[in-house]
């Protein structure tokens, strides 16, 4: 009976397992192998040489890009979480059931249009003669150089991550036991204080996971730093394309990509550990 059940489960999970094996694990292994290949006369040859790792890790430009990318993604995760929280909180606690359904629907709508299109439309807003500067001109301000700055890159990251972060936060807030909030109020904990003392600790796992998603999306994003940030300062994603274009250096690009993957793995691990810290691993009956 037991083995039949697991076979039944396997039937459904097998196609996905095969898919993951073919299109994720295999390319990843190939990427690792590729990072040890060598390039001579613009031609790649299979090899086992650590030269790409040594070259990349000893370059200032690599570490500069790494620092920039990590810092930008961290700021994006923090900023998105901070801006999304009041929004998710209002949807979870202040709206009627019908209004909440509409709000969730509105949060999903941005996913209907391509991220690239949304970033291009930001260019129209932020460019030197763009909508924002024209508006500011009417009140005698500006023009300000907004496009091709880190700020513009962050606007792009927000565009990318905001709706998803709001939804993830919303789902974790929606599952908070309302009695906990009432109990806090009942023990002299005012509205604002309850948010910090009860709501955030209760939704902690979801909030951390949401921030993690914002970090992951921003860390690997290529569109915002190039089209809104103007490619300067260079992020790791831009560095990858530059490296592949300059002299067929695919193995070196593989080194960057693998470093990014390793970084995300570490960040994800630390975030999940932090999210569940202090939680009992085992539960004793009710």
């Amino acid at each position: 009976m037991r083995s039949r059940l697991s076979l039944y489960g396997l039937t459904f999970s097998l196609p996905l397992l095969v898919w993951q094996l073919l299109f994720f694990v295999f390319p990843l292994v190939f990427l690792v192998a590729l990072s040890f290949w060598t390039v001579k006369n613009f031609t790649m040859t299979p090899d086992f040489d650590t030269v790409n790792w040594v070259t990349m890790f000893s370059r200032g430009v690599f570490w500069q890009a790494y620092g920039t990318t990590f810092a930008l993604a961290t700021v994006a995760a923090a900023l998105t979480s901070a801006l999304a929280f009041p929004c998710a909180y209002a949807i979870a606690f202040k709206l009627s059931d019908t209004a909440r359904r509409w709000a969730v629907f509105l949060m999903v709508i941005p996913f209907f249009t391509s991220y690239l299109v949304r970033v291009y439309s930001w260019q129209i807003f932020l460019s030197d003669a763009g909508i924002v500067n024209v508006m500011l001109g009417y009140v005698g301000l500006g023009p300000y150089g907004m496009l091709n700055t880190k700020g513009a890159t962050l606007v792009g990251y927000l565009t990318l991550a905001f709706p998803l972060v709001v939804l993830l936060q919303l789902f974790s807030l929606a599952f908070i036991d309302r009695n906990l909030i009432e109990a806090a109020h009942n023990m002299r904990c005012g509205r604002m204080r309850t948010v910090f003392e009860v709501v955030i600790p209760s939704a902690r796992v979801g909030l951390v996971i949401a921030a993690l998603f914002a970090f992951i999306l921003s860390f690997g994003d290529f569109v915002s730093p190039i089209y809104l940030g103007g490619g300067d300062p260079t992020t790791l994603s831009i560095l990858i394309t530059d490296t592949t274009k300059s002299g067929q250096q695919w193995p070196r690009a593989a080194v960057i990509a693998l470093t990014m993957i390793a970084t995300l793995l570490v960040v994800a691990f630390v975030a999940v550990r932090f999210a569940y810290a202090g939680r009992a691993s085992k539960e004793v009956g009710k």
Partner: protein
Amino acid sequence: MERDTLVSFEGVVKRFGNFTAVQRMDFEIKKGEFLAIMGSSGCGKTTTLRMLAGLEAPTEGTIRLSGKPINHLPTWQRDTPMVWQSLALFPFLNVRENVEFALKMRGVGKAERRRRAEQWLDRMQISEFAERNIAQLSGGQRQRVALARSLVVEPEILLLDEPLSALDAALKVRMQAVLKTLQRETGITFVYVTHSQSEAFSMADRVVIMSRGVIEQIGTPQEIYRTPRTKFVADFLGSSNIFSGKVASVSEGAMEIDAPSGRMRLALPDTARRSRPVPGSTATVTVLDTRMGLSVARPADAVNVVPAKVIGEEFVGATATLYLETDHGQEIRVQMGHEALENLPVGIGQRLYAHWSPADGHLVAEV
């Protein structure tokens, strides 16, 4: 208002949209008493408690705490700690932090907080679990944490919303004793909402019985048990036989009623004089199942006798409950000890005579 009144409800009404949860409530809670509010689900008992806690605002009327109206005060400005049915312990804090929470919100210093929490952890015998997570505790231990968390601020009143409903029967009885002792020792006024008669009657000094947003009766458990005010209360408690009929005659100290099962006589106490029924009106009489007698032959000297046949029996400990049915389909419950039962043939279908003294009949109010 009396001097020892702590809380008073004056014409309190609570409506949710078109639904009236509580209709015109007038009652008082005395300082230091253990008051149980009891009724089936949807009767408005929890709404009443939540209005007192400041978690719901009354639609009409005034609630006073120590004489001052508190309608407009949000819950965080009242001193009305509550123990939730789900207990609502904070899962992200350990036991000690849960108990310290209310003190922290009041700005009590760290050392003082710890000292006072320690006292209550000790008193509730949960000191050894102080550093544990809530998820690692058993049901009874959680109960104690919830009580310690509410009582640590040493309030004047404690509100409890069916806090024992998640416990198994044996633990329930143990916690009832803990609660009762705690209330007596601290002198804190307890307002305890429950649907369980055994909980209410075993712990409370006074019981409020509610039905459909209305108070049916307030009194000591004894009073309510012996003299239910309305037919609803008698029905709800389930320990009385209820006979309805037309009033045949009323005389000094006694009256007679014509019920389908025959004419019955009951003594009218002086207190009933003012609301003395008039002949021809409908009247309802209750007789406690412990006050009913049974015999094989029609007793010659008994005034109230109803023939009935046995339809079932039930044994709980030393007492037995017999269920009988009259020729008119009325059910009669009789409770007796095993010795009394030994001399009676009580096989299913056996015909017996149920009888009771006029002094044991109780006239309830017609509403």
